[in-house]
């Protein structure tokens, strides 16, 4: 940050010895984790909840605070901290919008937990949907657990190329 105080002619004279900034580096001194309270993840999150952003891993779009739904892209993923691994069911509450359904037609969604396929469901009509299915206890060995959905067809905007999957209302684990 501190600027060098070399007159330009001196720099010019030393030009032969000058080299560009190096492009190979040794590992730096590693930072220590900052102590403090870690924001806690729950088992289930509604999209209107104030701290929903902590749960979103990818493909869930921003929305105004308090809005009950968030649009997803093609592969939304969220993270959770299941209180226990036994007796948990994965739940996704979402809406397939009529406007997008008109273009995509029926959609098939693959629901996954920690990268393992839990189920694949075809939805033949728009409207509010709930997916819920028991999760094998040994699938919940990672903390946080990542849950994701892969939508086979998404609506693509003709103007800006934006891709919309479903309107997610909530997701996570329930007893």
């Amino acid at each position: 940050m501190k600027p060098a105080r070399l007159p330009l002619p001196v720099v010019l004279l030393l030009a032969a010895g000058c080299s560009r900034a190096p492009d190979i580096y040794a590992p730096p001194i590693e930072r220590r984790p900052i102590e403090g309270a870690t924001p806690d993840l729950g088992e289930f999150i509604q999209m209107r909840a104030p701290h929903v952003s902590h749960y979103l891993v990818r493909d869930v779009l921003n929305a105004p605070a308090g809005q009950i739904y968030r649009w997803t892209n093609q592969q939304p993923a969220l993270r959770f901290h299941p209180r226990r691994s036994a007796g948990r069911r994965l739940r996704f509450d979402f809406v397939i919008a009529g406007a997008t359904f008109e273009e995509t037609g029926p959609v098939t969604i693959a629901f996954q937990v920690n990268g393992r396929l839990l189920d694949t469901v075809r939805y033949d009509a728009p409207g509010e949907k709930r997916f819920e299915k028991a999760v094998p206890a040994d699938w919940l060995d990672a903390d946080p657990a990542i849950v994701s959905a892969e939508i086979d067809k998404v609506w693509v905007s003709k103007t800006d190329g934006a891709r919309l999957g479903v309107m997610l209302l909530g997701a996570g684990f329930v007893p």
Partner: protein
Amino acid sequence: MAQVLHILAGAAFTVLFCLALGRLVMDRLSLNLSGAERLLLGFPVGAACLHLIVFLLASVGQARKSVFLGAGVVIFAAAWRFRRNALSGVAVAPLPRIWKAAFLGLFTVFGVVYLVNALAPEHSPDGVTYHLGLVARYARDRGFRRITTNMYANLSQGLEMLYLVAFSVGRHSAATLTHLAFLAWLPLAMLAWARREGFPLAGAAAALFVFLSPVVGRDGAAAYNDVAVAAVLFAVFWLVELWRVRQDDGLLALAGLMAGFAYAAKYTAFLAVPYVLGCVAWRLRGERRRMARAALILGLCSLAMMAPWLAKNALWIGNPFSPFLNAWFPNPYIHVAFEQQYAAFMRTFGDVKDWRAIPFEVTLGGQALGGVVGPLFLLAPVALLALRTPAGRRVLLAAAVFGMVYPANIGTRFLIPALPFVALALAMAVQNTRGALGALVLFHALLSWPGLVSQYCDPAAWRITEIPLQAALRMEPEDRFLTRKVSAYPIARLIEKSVPPRATVFAFSPVAEAYTTRNVPVLYQSAWGEALGDIFKAALFPDLEAKESLRFRFAPRAARKIRVSQTAAGTDIWSVTELRVFRAGKELARGQGWRLRARPNPWDVQLAFDNSPVTRWRSWEAIRPGMFVEVDFGAVETADAVFLDTVPDQYQARWRLEALDPEGRWSVLSDAPETAALALKAGLKRAAMQEFKARGVGYLVLSESDYAWAPVAADPAAWGLAIAGEAGGARLYRID
């Protein structure tokens, strides 16, 4: 009043220095020029030479008042000692008395308005931030220091070199008055050229079209450089015109110097060099030897003016054309992605996506593109009628060449360099229509008067809005005037009072750097600043937190190097927050024998190995196959997994892990990583501020319009920040 005298003395000294130096150069070249030509051309020629002298002084840390004054005295004496008589008997077409009166009257009335505005404390947006911010810095440092956190310091600053001379004597307003001198010069030069060509009325009218134009007046009465660039380009044109008739090598040399100075004054004026070369080549077509000699003279003279700026950037930034062409000259100081975004913005200014909106915006609107040239210029297409005459064709050629770069930056003031030629062509096109020139001048004068401009343009248009006589004479204190005129001024003064001299204040938006001596790098102005912005966002926005872990698992493999490559192309920026190598479930310690490499942006590769959740290596370029982050273990290591912590803002990225085996063969280990979620991290905000401190930043300044204002204001303690003061809608925080 003493301050006003200092200001006037600073500007007068600089202008006289230019005139004397120009006169000396022209006399030594034994040019046969009339008295008016020598007087008028002497100013820009001297300015070009003075800029070079100041550059050299700034390079050796001797850019200070006493040296400037001493050099000035020497040059004044030499100019007197070696003076030559001007060419006499040069025929020029007379200007009718009524036109003479009209020209002088309008020149004087508008000139006084401009003078008062220029004399008032400098308050233009770019003047108080970087034009004079850098000049003030050079004045404090007595020259250049290597600046890597402000892209504006990498632009060519030919005019700023002149401002430095004026500033050293009379401070800010003296620099502004130096720019005003170019504004006063331009119409006189246009008239002089037109009189020699035999159309004095068109010349007088065109000169007034330019001089009275609202954006020209506003710009010329501020510490900008557009009007000076227009003046320099007109000087180039004029010298080429003189050479066309007289074929004098001295004129050719001056044309080359001025073309090079055009580049030195503003990058976008680089077209002066091909313009001169093209004109000379056309004139000498078929005469190969003369053409080669002329090209050599032009090339050497223009290079003399351009080379210092190219060399300064090449040596200090690693890119002679910084802050542009970073993809061609990769460097750690300006990101390629930033340059692309910046260039894209300048092509539309964010709002003007349809070019058909530009004519209205630059003549009548003025809000989106920053000012208006005046409704008169809606008649610009009429200028094409000037194609009927040889002089008209030459003027229109200059307009076309110097206006060619306008689409790259559609701000109204970027039309100014071509405006004198458009104005001349327009006036030449209608000069034979009885009464047309007079009517147009009257129409333009009325619609350019500051009080009337406000009647038709957007209220936010950049223009002269008052005649601040009290402030100009310093009867209204500078501090009060600047507080009411410049929103970024109060915080600059607060920084001056509250921050120790060597501390660094990081700003999310520009402050009036010309009015503080503290170092205030701004987020968007460098790669360094953008990296800090990225760190801040990682702590502020959960969406930009490293939440995803990409896990490559493979059978235990002995390797010298491992490399994570990018296989996709797209518009996303690729990044790796942390790269960890594992064996049997245990992370390998990053030994000091390890060597890290990345392509592109190798300079930030350590950010992927620093164990910080808020820093990341980023490509800072759109993803493309072949990008990589690489670890050279320095010895053979056995590993069975590589984990990457990543931010989920790179949807297009596709990853591949490769290894270099002990025999020196690369092989793909995996291109299908598992995805896992990372646990929430504590203390990201404090971690971000620790990174700021580690980079030498002790303070943070936020304005109400900054995205970070509300979240930081809500809980400064969570960030480890303490409020150090508040002024003018901005708040200064100290990082504890």
